[in-house]
């Protein structure tokens, strides 16, 4: 009877482990990326360029847009433009935002591209899709909980939860408690 119980425990742990592999990789990669959000943008690559251009005189800010885009060889789809103040023009192009100083001709470009792969894993990890993904992610969390519990009882004997496993599990529980005590 005891052997059968452990066998089912191992089967659940093994098969859940297989099922959870993909999602665990996604959450782990995104976790590493998002953990360092203060140092970098984990979802977007932002490139900033500064150039100067001789702007055509006598034209309104809106009328300057085509010549500026042409002059910069910017072929992205034009979205809109806006003047935050009388001397500045912001031009929005697909993947690029240009800030033009109408007095000096100084142009700051902010080119934004998604980080391939990372954008998608962060999209899922941070639950941007909401809707059905929320339920799926909840199921994954429950599966992880089951993996953790069944993992405790894989091995019998001294290397299991009654021996070495108990010490290591206690260490794993104490470590986060220590950090809460240290920084909490």
């Amino acid at each position, binding site marked *: 009877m005891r052997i059968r119980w452990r066998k089912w425990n191992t089967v659940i742990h093994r098969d859940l482990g297989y099922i959870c592999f993909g999602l665990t990789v996604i959450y782990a990669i995104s976790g590493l990326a998002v953990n360092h*959000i203060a140092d970098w*943008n984990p979802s*977007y690559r*932002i490139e900033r360029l500064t150039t100067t251009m001789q702007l055509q005189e006598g034209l309104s800010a809106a009328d300057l847009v085509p010549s500026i885009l042409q002059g910069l060889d910017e072929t992205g789809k034009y*979205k*809109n433009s*806006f*003047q*935050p*103040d*009388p001397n500045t023009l*912001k031009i*929005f*192009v*697909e*993947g690029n*935002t240009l800030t033009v100083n109408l007095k000096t001709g100084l142009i700051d470009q902010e080119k*934004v591209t998604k980080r391939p792969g990372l954008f998608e894993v962060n999209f899922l990890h*941070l*639950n*941007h899709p909401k809707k059905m993904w929320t339920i799926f992610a909840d199921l994954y969390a429950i599966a992880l909980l089951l993996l953790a519990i069944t993992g405790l009882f894989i091995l019998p004997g001294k290397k299991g939860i009654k021996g070495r496993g108990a010490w290591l599990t206690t260490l794993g529980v104490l470590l986060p408690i220590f950090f809460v005590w240290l920084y909490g």
Partner: protein
Amino acid sequence: MKKIVFLSLILVLLCVGQVAAKSRTYGKGIQLTEVTKISTILDNPESYEGKRVKVAGMVVGVCASRGCWIYLTSDRPYEKIQVKVTDGEIVFPMSASGHQAQVEGVVDVMNLTLEQMTNYERHLAEERGEAFDPATVKGPGKLVRIIGLGAEIEE
């Protein structure tokens, strides 16, 4: 005749579907029908404080690190308002810049000291990934923003 009516109905539904597909809903979406002008809110922020409003404008700035705020243009030139959302609850994509948006939320008014304003501007610059110069802060002031609950942004 029935066929024509049926086909026309399908065509209309398809067209409606196309229009609807061109905007994306965030958070709780939009429930209010009446649009409040951003300029009116900025002229009399205290009378709108705590009130739920629907505003409309062009997205001219997005939080690059978390997508947790956007700036919307006002109906008056050279003016904009910040829409702040709870981190993770709504995430605005960088691609929203330059698109028209409708936002529903609660007007929030904060009177900031010079130090608070400097910290606030520094935080915004960090989220934009830009260098911050404290000298650009003009002084203590009133910060009027909208705590966003839902939005619809054209795509």
